[in-house]
């Protein structure tokens, strides 16, 4: 605190005053970036949220001869053109576009599904009975004549893989954190900590590769399930990615418990393990909770591992051994093939915005929990 409390030395010269204000402004970058991410991912998804997109194949049409009498604004709206696009087109192109529009209308299948706008909220989250199905179902099938954008299969996929990852990673990481921070001899600790954190240095695409080439075959041989790539394989590989996250935060929380807690327990005759398990761990439990939340956030946001190891079939199933498609993998696999500004494109941004909101909330909670914990422990120490 001394440095903050110091007078600023000799008075700052005018130029220095400007530089110091500049430093202040640049330090706002992180806030600005969070804001921009929200703004620009949200902006592309906004038309769907506001219900401005329409995927219905049956839309009112006008004869091509109307082109002569329509105003530019009407033409742009009718053909879904942006002003810049409209400016580049000559009459002939516009006429052809109107012709295409008519033909699309004629060729549209004449069933009830062709009439609905599948980007409405109820089709995104509730099951719907499509024409060829015998009961209402959740379906994500963006590349078909009638695009189906139900988000439930993707959300279930993400949850399945992330929960497997947590179930695998948390016990291991927490056990290691207790050992390294409380029980290990100091000299061993200096080796163990960077050793485990080395796992964080493996790029996720390499973990994905390992899951795809080695782990999937190995687990299939051991457990004998049908689909080689599934939520379980992806979850285990994801677990490897989040072990260092959970370990680091939990270890930090355990280490920040004042030594006096442990020493008091030892003085009362507790063994080292009892001091760690019954005194230090309970004191640091909010930090462990934060570690799990952040681990979950990391797992649900991880892309390459699930893209490579989950099998990518978007089906609704709670079985861990079915091929699964997550939210992140869907964005990564499909965005390149979408039409810029189309409903599929915007739908993927909506999925991204959803991911952002979920991880933002998780981070926010974890941040507050850790802050409170440290304050409390420091206050008592």
């Amino acid at each position: 605190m001394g440095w903050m409390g110091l007078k600023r030395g000799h008075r700052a010269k005018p130029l220095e005053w400007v530089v110091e204000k500049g430093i202040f402004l640049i330090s706002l970058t992180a806030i600005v970036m969070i804001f921009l991410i929200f703004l620009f991912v949200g902006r592309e998804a906004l038309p769907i949220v506001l219900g401005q997109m329409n995927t219905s194949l049956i839309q009112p049409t006008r004869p091509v001869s109307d082109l002569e009498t329509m105003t530019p604004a009407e033409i742009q709206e009718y053909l879904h053109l942006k002003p810049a696009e409209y400016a580049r087109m000559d009459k002939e192109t516009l006429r052809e576009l109107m012709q295409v529009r008519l033909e699309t209308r004629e060729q549209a299948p004449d069933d009830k599904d062709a009439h609905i706008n599948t980007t409405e909220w109820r089709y995104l989250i509730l099951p719907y009975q499509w024409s060829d199905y015998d009961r209402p179902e959740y379906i994500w099938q963006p590349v078909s004549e009638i695009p189906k954008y139900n988000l439930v299969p993707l959300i279930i996929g993400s949850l399945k893989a992330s929960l497997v990852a947590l179930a695998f990673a948390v016990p291991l990481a927490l056990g290691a954190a207790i050992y390294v921070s409380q029980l290990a001899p100091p000299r061993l600790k200096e080796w163990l900590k960077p050793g485990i954190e080395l796992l964080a240095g493996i790029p996720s695409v390499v973990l994905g590769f390992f899951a795809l080439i080695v782990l999937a075959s190995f687990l299939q041989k051991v457990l004998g399930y049908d689909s080689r790539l599934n939520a379980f394989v992806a979850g285990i590989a994801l677990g490897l990615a989040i072990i260092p996250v959970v370990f680091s935060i939990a270890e930090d929380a355990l280490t920040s418990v004042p030594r006096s807690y442990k020493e008091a327990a030892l003085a009362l005759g507790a063994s080292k393990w009892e001091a760690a398990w019954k005194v230090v761990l309970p004191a640091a439990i909010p930090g462990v909770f934060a570690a799990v939340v952040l681990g979950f956030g990391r797992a649900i946001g991880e892309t390459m591992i699930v893209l490579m190891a989950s099998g990518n079939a978007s089906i609704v199933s709670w079985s861990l051994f079915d091929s699964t498609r997550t939210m992140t993998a869907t964005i990564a696999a499909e965005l390149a093939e979408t039409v810029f500004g189309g409903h599929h494109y915007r739908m993927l941004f909506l999925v991204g915005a959803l991911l952002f909101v979920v991880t933002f909330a998780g981070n926010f909670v974890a941040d507050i929990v850790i802050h409170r914990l440290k304050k409390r422990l420091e206050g008592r120490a």
Partner: protein
Amino acid sequence: MNRIPSQTTGSVRKLFSVLGTGVTILATVLILAILAVILINILWHGAEGLSLRFLFSMSDKDMFDVEKAGVLPMIIGTAARVIIMAILVLPVGVITAVYLTEYAHATSIFTRVIRGAVNNLAGVPSIVFGLFGLGFFINFLGGRLDAVLYPGDAEPHWGKPALLWASATLAVMTLPVVIVATEESLRAIPIGLREASLALGATKLQTIIKIVLPNALPGILTGAILAISRAAGEVAPILFTGAAYYMAGLPKSLSDQFMDLGYHIFILSTQSPNIEKTRSLLYATVVVLLLLTFALNAVAIVVRARMRRNMRQSH
């Protein structure tokens, strides 16, 4: 208070202690064993595909041809994108850290908001950064640039995936890494150094530029290396912002696309017509990426350890 807390006998307590300790040791060993298995498996299989020709020749049109394929363009592409990223992220990250440690009041709401934003930025999923790069850098900035620089030209120059946009996206992603590492090194500098400088008549800004920052250099370097090693392995943020499936030559300008090691691993493992045949190629590429990121990490760990030792001595 007057009750004896534990009714269990000594030997049962002892058994639980030994068991508990054993479980935690097992967890630690298991994590390290998995790590070792992954590394050994990759190095073992990767060694056979590695050769000087593989490292230093251009990629063949048929990327899955084990005899001809090289990874030089991917190494150069990955290096280019992380270097440009470092140039973009370092000034911003270091200046933010300077503000947080030297100027801001540690307890003010405002400082907490900045810190919260930094923590949050660190937790944003990498694919969301990719979407952000596409929405902000390519569509918004790139689109505006094209409208200003090349009015009336239908062909996009900047409004498309490019080396610069991929690097900028990664720079946003690694900003927290640089900030946290720099902050740590700034805090490690003894307050006495600053006081001595002020006592000699320097202003606060002079003290920061001439005394604080030079002393924090190892820490800033660590931050830069960690950011580069993190970014080098990331694929999701560059999927839509710059990485190319295949390119005949090397990127020549910031607006060109590039080939990338991590993305190439993804292609080799998922698009290969014959995974058995291309296995050695795939493993060798993985080894190159892994050695690159691990070497960077190792350097960062050594620099940091040395810094901490110096710090302990100077106190």
